């Protein structure tokens, strides 16, 4: 940032008249402030290697595109529509928020807001209701990112008169004709998104980036749990952490496991049990450390442990 104050990379107005020949890549990188966002992504999101990789690639492309534009090397606006697929609780929405700010920093969306919608907000209830509704959302998302969660609900194959199809057509049209005005991100569970794309080939071909969110490993889930606890000002005792490692292994084998979301729910229940344990003995003085720490017994009281016998 301080390089900006010493001397501007190009004198103002010069980029209109003659294209620049050379660019200091590091300065450009720092000026955009993209490194900071990517580092934050690395720091705050555990795991998700392929996702981070892809975001880095996209960010690099956009940085180079920016420089190419200043060098007057003509090129089309890259297609930035994306689809996020992955199991529940793998961080799709969280990443979408970051994408909006990355694209904004690079100047590829003008405002950088994220408009998050589901079927309800796009599809109307009677004839003639859908188009204005969808357009209204699109207008609000202009200059930013439109995030459609569980996008496969837009298409209802069992009902051919479903209004979802109308919303899909309007979306496709705007995605194609106003590529520089907004970025659309579709998200949903892998298998159902595949079916959705199979029945709407137009969508598949208009989306350049298909990013698959992998499930977290046991170790990553533990890290996520510890970050969540730190944010809530709690901590595991050594025995509790060891118990929680076992909890994760057992919980993953059970049905309806949804990654980070299950972890968050488990932590909420552990906090309940901790509170109950503290309240059960009223005749004592609590210190801050006791209120903060979760003990092994809080973890081990979980239903997950009782089922294995």
């Amino acid at each position, binding site marked *: 940032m301080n390089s900006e104050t010493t001397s501007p990379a190009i004198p103002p107005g010069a980029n209109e008249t003659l294209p620049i020949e050379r660019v200091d890549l590091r300065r450009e990188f720092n000026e955009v402030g993209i490194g900071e966002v990517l580092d934050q992504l690395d720091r705050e999101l555990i795991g998700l290697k392929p996702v981070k990789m892809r975001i880095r690639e996209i960010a690099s492309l956009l940085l180079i595109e920016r420089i190419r534009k200043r060098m007057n090397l003509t090129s089309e606006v890259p297609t930035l529509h994306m689809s996020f697929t992955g199991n529940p609780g793998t961080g799709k929405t969280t990443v979408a928020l970051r994408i909006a700010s990355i694209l904004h920093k690079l100047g590829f969306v*003008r405002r950088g807001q994220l408009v998050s919608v589901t079927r309800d907000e796009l599809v109307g209830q009677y004839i003639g209701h859908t188009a204005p509704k969808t357009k209204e959302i*699109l207008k609000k998302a202009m*200059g930013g990112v439109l995030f459609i969660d569980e996008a496969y609900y837009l298409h209802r194959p069992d009902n051919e008169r479903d209004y979802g199809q109308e919303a899909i057509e309007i979306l496709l049209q705007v995605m194609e004709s106003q590529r520089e005005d907004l970025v659309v991100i579709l998200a949903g569970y892998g298998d159902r998104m595949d079916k959705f794309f199979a029945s709407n080939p137009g969508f598949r071909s208009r989306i350049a980036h298909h990013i698959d969110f992998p499930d977290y490993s046991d170790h990553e889930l533990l890290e996520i749990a510890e970050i969540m606890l730190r944010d809530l000002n709690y901590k595991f005792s050594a025995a509790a952490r060891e118990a929680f490692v076992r909890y994760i292994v057992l919980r993953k084998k059970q049905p309806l496991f949804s990654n980070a979301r299950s972890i968050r729910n488990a932590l909420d229940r552990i906090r309940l049990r901790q509170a109950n344990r503290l309240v059960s003995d009223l005749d004592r003085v609590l210190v801050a450390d006791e209120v903060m720490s979760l003990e092994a017994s809080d973890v081990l009281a979980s239903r997950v442990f009782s089922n294995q016998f």
Partner: protein
Amino acid sequence: MRITQGCFSFLPDLTDEQISRQVQYCLGKGWAVNIEFTDDPHPRNSFWEMWGLPMFDLRDAAGVLMELNECRKVYGDRYIRMSAFDSSHGWESQRLSFIVNRPKDEPGFRLERQEVDGRNIRYTTRSYAVDRPEGSRYGGK
């Protein structure tokens, strides 16, 4: 005769880019932009028809331009104007209005002098365009 109503009407017609900059200014102020059209150009005609609802909660002018282009497709032979509504306390009224589309030729107004009692005269302006019924003015279908 070129009619001059609202902002910028003594300037050459705004280009789409200029329109979008003006709209962005309105959005930046938190005003809701509305598109209206009419084929009755009389300056006292305050009943312009609305193209959809006023657009609240927009962040970027591209959305408004999208609607404007839709409106031009249907009513490109009429006057279209943008108005910006300020909902903040104390204002609660229109803050800005400007014409963004006008018919190819504007036939102008006839001045009628009605001679009344004594030597008095009452003046009326009447647009030549409104001699024809609504919808078929300005070479419409």
